């Protein structure tokens, strides 16, 4: 997973900063933080992985998740809702319950990369 480029989609700035740190600790290259859906949708694809907060300032992230799924970009959901808030079409994807231990995130990302490889 080292060296992979990752996008953080997260509207809580403190959480985003924390994730930047731990993802960097994992050896990933954080390409940026999108805090709004439009930002994520319009962003040029300069990443290999993504961590998606489900709720972004009153909108949900699933349009973007659909786009990533279409493009074959592996991603993990991070949400306060748990699996319950995930629509049928995205069930089965890794979901991290906020707050999560850094190790859980690391494990989830490792699995993603391993499966994509």
């Amino acid at each position, binding site marked *: 997973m080292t060296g992979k480029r990752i996008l953080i989609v997260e509207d*809580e700035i403190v959480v985003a*900063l924390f994730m930047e*740190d731990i993802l960097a600790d994992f050896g990933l290259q954080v390409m940026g933080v999108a805090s709004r859906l439009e930002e994520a949708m319009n962003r040029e694809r300069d990443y290999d992985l993504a961590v998606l907060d489900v709720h972004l300032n009153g909108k949900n992230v699933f349009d973007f998740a659909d786009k990533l799924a279409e493009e074959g970009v592996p991603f993990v959901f991070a949400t306060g809702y748990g699996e319950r808030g995930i629509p049928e079409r995205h069930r089965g994807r890794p979901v991290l319950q906020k707050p999560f231990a850094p190790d859980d995130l690391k494990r989830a990302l490792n699995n993603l990369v391993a499966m994509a490889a």
Partner: protein
Amino acid sequence: MTGPSAPDFLMGGGEMGAAIRAFDWASSPLGSPESWPAELRTCLRIMLASRQPMWVWWGPELINFYNDAYLPIIGGKHPHALGQPAKEVWSEIWDQIKDRIGAAMQGEATYSEAELLVMHRNGYAEETYYTFSFSPVPEESGGIGGIVCANTDDTDRVVGARRLALLREIASRTWEANSVSEVYNLSARALGTDRRDMPFALIYRLSDDGTRANLLGSSGIEVGHPAAPQSIALDGASPWPLSDVVRTGSRRFVGRLPEKFPSLPMAPWSDPPADAVMLPLTTGADAAPRGVLVLAANPYRRQNDDSFDNFAALVARQIASAVVNMEALEAERGRAKSADTLALEIEHRRRIERHQNLLLDELNHRVKNTLATVQAMAMQTLKGVDAVARDTFLARLFALSSQHDLLTLDNWEGASFEGVVRRALRPWRQEDNTRFTVEGPAVHLDPKRALALGMGFHELATNAAKYGALSNGEGRVRVTWTIDPDGQWLRLRWEERGGPRIEAPEKRGFGLRLIEHGLGRELGGVVKLDFAAEGFSCEWVMKLG
């Protein structure tokens, strides 16, 4: 009969002309026709030639003459009525018309339209309607010699219009009905608008099991009168043999009513009804009767005339259709209503649930994001400072978060006691589940207590992992709880065995303080900690409800 001496003015005139010519006038108050005044002669010529029913009453005695067209009107009184004083001929209506006769004899003409006259012309009282004019005939001498009257029989027209109006009345009133029993009731009220045809009427509805007929509507008679029982057992004796009608589906006549019911109401006539017809309330021969209509017949109706029977059949049909239509409407409404109500209730419940779920999702989202934010801040703050402190903090944070998950699962309605215990111990149970015993009856905790207890167990387990039974490889933790027989108190015991020997700490840390004081207060109970050398134990007594 036609004598050669008959005067010219009496020639022609059909049957009545002949009768007048043959009459022995000499012995009457008028004397022989040759002596009759010119005015009377003229009147008689006009009368006999007319196709209009007419009569002439002449002289102070008002001696009666009438023409052929009048024969049906005078009926059985003919031929005796000829040459008789009008007062005797029409004794039954004399009181009714005498004032107008008196006025006419004073020179005042009157005109009466469709007036009800109960005549006894055929051996029985008969309801009739006539339009007639009393025209005084002045004499040259100055006085009034007599009266000429032209009549129109309006009986058929009046009775026909009335019956038609009643059928319309039933239709329009039952249109307003909202239930089958209202159809019966409103039909009865409609029947009450035509008491001349039906002095009283009863509408019985068959009970669902078909054993009884219950009076659902009546007019012209008090409910409970011997002739209007509220309920009739079909297999029992009754003045109204309704069961015949129900069984055969065809009408029955009941005669001699005054003998069967001594005190029958007489209104609107001066005699009680003599007979009645009972008709099944059914829309067709193949349809089961819904009930039975009892119509007491007008005692003054024309005899040997089946128009009343036909009318009664129409009335029964009209009411039966209203009943059947309402039954269909009620059935449909029942279906539609229950489906509508159900759909509304479901929709309403869904909306509430959706709203509640939205709120709960929002709540969970905020709680979790806040916890995530706190976690992020703590991690940043404690970075490189104190790994142990950081891990302890994170464990507590995750314990809190985990208990929230438990509440989320149950939509914040609370959580089971056992669920709270198991979730709090999960981090340690994941390593070795066999070291735990969790036992107790089902107890529901509200969210506040669930969270407090969850945190308490987290601290107990953390404590055990640091100093107690979970700090070595073989210690065990036993969590048991019971409810007092009165259901008021819950006793919980946390018992550690097999750990290293312990002694009471000199200073109690956050965890123990949280358990001992915080939870005691929060849960409204008493907490007792026991630092026995062979193992720590803790007992909570907590009030339920």
